[in-house]
């Protein structure tokens, strides 16, 4: 343990934490409760809504799988959750919907990966590519075959290709990533680099978030959405996961 190295860290941290506030924070418990109520209307899935969502997801996924690269599309293994900017095989399709199992039953063959923006105490199983590399349609380096709109995303991460100037609809479907039902959306879709991909609009409806994105310049950016997530009622260990899930769409913008 580098105790000497830690002295400065400890000193600076203590100085900051002991810094007296120069003005009182006017937020109060009641104001927190009011703002939480007004902003974060909880989504309680009814059986009919869940069924409708499942149908929409199935239809959207079918569209993507049928229409991409002339029927020669390939399923791409889900990227490790949170691994934004991981290499994208040009022209690969968006991963098919997956139902993430409870964190308490991680298959041994899977690589545990920290849930995006979640606690270190919980892992999601992520399928890794162990066989032959996924081969997308032939394209020049830095270019890709545009993914047809709409793009359906219902896994922790997905990839897509968008041409410069084109507007694409992306539908994110919440994951039940922790074994329990997902909750409300936290804000709208955001782009990691608005100079490459801009989010023109973002609307939510139950478990679906629909965003219009536009490719501005060649490059790669990530479109992210966040949502609350419940722990499973069946979880026997204390569920300490910060209640947030995230889905990301890595977008390669090509000329």
């Amino acid at each position, binding site marked *: *343990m*580098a*105790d*000497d*190295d*830690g002295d*400065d*860290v*400890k000193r*600076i*941290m*203590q*100085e*900051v*934490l*002991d*810094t007296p*506030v*120069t*003005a*009182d*924070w*006017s*937020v*109060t*418990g*009641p*104001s*927190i*409760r009011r*703002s*939480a*109520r007004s*902003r*974060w209307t*909880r989504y309680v899935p009814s059986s009919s809504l869940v069924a409708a969502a499942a149908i929409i997801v199935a239809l959207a996924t079918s569209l993507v799988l049928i229409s991409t690269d002339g029927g020669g599309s390939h399923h791409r293994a889900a990227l490790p959750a949170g691994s*934004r900017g991981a290499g994208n095989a040009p022209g690969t399709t968006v991963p098919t919907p997956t139902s993430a199992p409870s964190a308490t039953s991680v298959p041994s063959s899977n690589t545990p990966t*920290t849930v*995006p*923006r*979640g*606690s*270190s*105490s919980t892992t999601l199983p992520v399928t890794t590519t162990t066989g032959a590399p996924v081969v997308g349609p032939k394209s020049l380096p830095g270019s890709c075959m545009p993914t047809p709109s709409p793009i359906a995303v219902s896994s922790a991460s997905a990839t897509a290709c968008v041409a410069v100037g084109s507007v694409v609809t992306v539908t994110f479907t919440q994951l039940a990533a922790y074994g329990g039902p997902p*909750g409300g959306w936290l*804000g*709208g879709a*955001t*782009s*990691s*680099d*608005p100079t490459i991909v801009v989010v023109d609009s973002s609307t939510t409806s139950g478990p679906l978030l629909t965003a219009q994105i536009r490719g501005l310049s060649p490059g790669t950016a990530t479109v*992210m959405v966040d949502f*609350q997530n419940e722990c499973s009622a069946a979880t026997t260990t*204390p569920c*300490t996961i*910060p*209640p*947030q899930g995230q889905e990301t769409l890595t977008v390669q913008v090509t000329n």
Partner: protein
Amino acid sequence: MDESGGEGFDAFFRASQRRLLAQAFLLTADSAKAQDLTQEAFERAWSRWRTVSALEDPEGWTRKVLHNLCISDWRRTTRHRRTRLDRQPDCFPAPSDDHLMLLSALRSLSADQARAIVLHDGLGYTVPEIAADMSKPEGTVKAWISRGHSRAAQLLSSTQTGEIEGANDGR
């Protein structure tokens, strides 16, 4: 959300808000952002207060959410800022150079390493306590802290050297 438990939440908020706000400032060096994220963490605590209030350490739960929000904020180049009508821009003084350098060092670490360092050096947790809090082996936590200290020391010393060189250049 029904209002049951409102008084308990308000008491919890009063008791813990200063500590958590300071931690958010430590992890952001930005007074406004610290207020935003702290408010967000408390809102999440309230949105599931029935569960959180039954925990042995509701502040620990909220702190974990807050730290993750702050660390997630590092990873983003943009963020949809919600309108905070009650933000006090000058809640904290401007961050010191040391603070900014420390934050830079923390940002160069993994999220787990950064959390471990904050818990250990900022909040005085012991290694076994951190290991329990993060559900990791003690050896892993020790390694995180050690590496984090080394990284921070590197950055801090390079800055101090740079300042001396800069001062000499100015003469």
